[in-house]
């Protein structure tokens, strides 16, 4: 906390940041107690886009909940699909076709890149730079076109099914993916020259918004936020699910704990995702894209199950309680951004308003995922 903020007496005022504010990317409201431009206290207020996804799960069959998963984190919808599908598969003991696993990895990582690209654009937009957003969208558009050609949808894919995927991928998709990776490889230096190495950007991010490893553990922060604070934890590497254990990739970890570290983690993750996709495309086995004879009506045996996957924002955990019927008894979702946002109140104390907003942007908030 700065000396300025400590010395305040009663000269504070309350500033309502949101629910409609350009920097909150949705309907998040942050109640700020301000002393001039210094944040004395920040309290995120949630619930403006709560849609009862967990309760909806209890009223639908296991398969019918699938479309819901993509609507929580609409930027990395496939990871949420993946998390739910894997959880049910593990609970019901459904085997997954090998080709389907590779298809899942390819599409999932493409989706991760698109999520990070959008975050990159939106983050620079938060800091007042407009053009990088449009450049990132230009690249992201290629991913959306690719995913649309296999899944039929551009945002809420709902592509994975118990035992496989909904549709097979074709050579056109694979060629498009390879071409896109080459294109993005060529574009990455441009992003770094335009944004990362820019002196204004460096001044705004380096040393700003420190989030210590201890704070991450306290609030349960995961994903790039934790990795930017020196916590080497990525479920794809440390609790491998699907076929991630077969790929050679690194988990970028930065120990600076500032906004720049979180920024760099995500930029490096784009590179790593490209590596994973390249390997997966090379290794893609032939075979069915769906385990044959998976019953349409899934009934996991009675019990309590937990499964977690790594999304673009952190660990997405899903706890299923099954009573043996065709609907879940309880479906608890642990969304990564909820925990990541929780540390905002403590981390932003004593910061200037623009720095606090840079910190908030670096947490990569997706509000529908927080509220569910």
């Amino acid at each position, binding site marked *: 906390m700065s000396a300025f903020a400590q010395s305040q007496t009663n000269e504070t005022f309350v500033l309502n940041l949101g629910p409609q*504010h*350009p*920097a909150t990317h949705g309907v998040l409201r942050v109640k700020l107690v301000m002393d001039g431009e210094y944040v004395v206290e920040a309290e995120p207020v949630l619930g403006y886009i709560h849609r009862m996804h967990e309760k909806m799960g209890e009223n639908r069959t296991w398969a019918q909940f699938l479309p819901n998963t993509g609507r929580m984190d609409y930027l990395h919808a496939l990871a949420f699909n993946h998390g739910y599908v894997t959880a049910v598969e593990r609970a019901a003991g459904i085997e997954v076709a090998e080709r389907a696993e590779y298809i899942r990895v390819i599409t999932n990582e493409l989706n991760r890149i698109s999520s990070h690209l959008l975050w990159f654009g939106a983050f620079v937009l938060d*800091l007042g730079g407009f053009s990088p957003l449009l450049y990132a969208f230009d690249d992201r558009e290629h991913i959306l076109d690719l995913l649309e050609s296999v899944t039929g949808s551009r945002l809420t894919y709902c592509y994975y099914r118990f035992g496989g995927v909904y549709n097979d991928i074709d050579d056109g998709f694979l060629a498009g993916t390879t071409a896109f990776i080459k294109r993005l490889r060529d574009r990455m230096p441009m992003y770094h020259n335009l944004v990362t190495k820019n002196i*204004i950007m460096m*001044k*705004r991010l380096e040393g700003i918004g420190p989030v210590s490893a201890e704070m991450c553990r306290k609030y349960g922060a995961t994903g790039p936020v934790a990795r930017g604070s020196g916590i080497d934890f990525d479920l794809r590497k440390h609790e491998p699910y699907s076929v991630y254990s077969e790929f050679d990739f690194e988990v970028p970890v930065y120990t600076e704990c500032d906004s720049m570290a979180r920024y760099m983690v995500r930029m490096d993750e784009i590179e790593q995702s490209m590596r994973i996709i390249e390997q997966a495309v090379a290794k893609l086995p032939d075979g069915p894209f769906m385990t044959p004879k998976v019953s349409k009506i899934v009934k996991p045996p009675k019990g309590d199950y937990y499964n977690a996957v790594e999304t673009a924002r952190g660990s997405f955990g899903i706890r299923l309680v099954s009573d043996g019927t065709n609907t879940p008894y309880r479906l608890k979702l642990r969304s990564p951004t909820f925990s990541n946002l929780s540390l905002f109140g403590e981390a932003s104390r004593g910061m*200037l308003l*623009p720095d606090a*907003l840079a910190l908030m942007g670096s947490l990569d908030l997706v509000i529908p995922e927080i509220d569910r």
Partner: protein
Amino acid sequence: MSLDPEVVRVLAFLVGVIAFAALNAAYLVWLERKEAGHIQRRIGPKEVGPFGLLQPLADGAKLMTKQLIVPDGVDPVLFKIAPIMVMVPAIMSFVTIPFSDTLVARNIDIGLLVIFAFASVNVLGLLLGAWGSRNKYAIISAARVVSQNVAYEIPMLVTVVTLVMITGTMNLHEIVMSQQGGFWNWNILRLNASPLMPISFLIFFVCMLAETNRAPFDMAEAESELIAGAFTEYPGMGFGVFFMGEYANIVIGACLATILFLGGWQCPFGLYPGVHWFLIKIYAIIFTVIWIRWTFPRTTFYSLLNLSWKILIPISFFNLILTSAMLKVF
């Protein structure tokens, strides 16, 4: 009864200056949107008229038909007077600007001083508007505007003082005349007066960006932080007038940079000097200003002050001392 020719002259220039300022404000918005579009690899306005050239008219019609809401609890006098206080000084500054050898409304000996005097009033307008509109975001913005302008007027004026020492006059017409002959005679390249003149121009340019609240120094508006800063509560044409004032200020800044550093209406090769060279130069500067806006992220408030107090002011003072020493020696 015949009119006094002086009255006719004054009226003609009054109409001319207002028309120039207003047209510029309208079409700079078009230029900005078009340039931003192409930088971002899209087209920008194109539906209204050819190349979207009638877009400013459509924008104007939209702004003018909007209801002028005066929110509850604002200071009605300050709220209404503020846009005018931004617009009027901007137009007044045009009075002393020489567009060419003969095209100037009033050639006064302290023209430079007049422009800086009016430029300071502009800040007052923003401050009053922000204070009067009873909005927390606007008040944060007001505090930023004032300290930003105080911080940036110093290096700007020190740079200008350097120039005045070199040219020996505050008359804008004479400043331009002293740069006759070719681009090597322009103040930006007068290395015999001070080897730091190009850096001096950069400092002036940066200060001009900060003075006109342009990105990356648009602390006052900062839409991702303060929504619209000082203009948050302004509806319709209230906002429109602010907006026009901002653009008029950019034109003034570009004119000043042209006159002081780039030889005004002088041709780079000494041929055919005239108003066309002046216009080419100011629009090139405005193009750069817009180009900068669509390239960089916004600075923060303290790095803006750091830049001013720790870098721009020491360098401009050093340049001042160096120039005076060199003037004395050579």
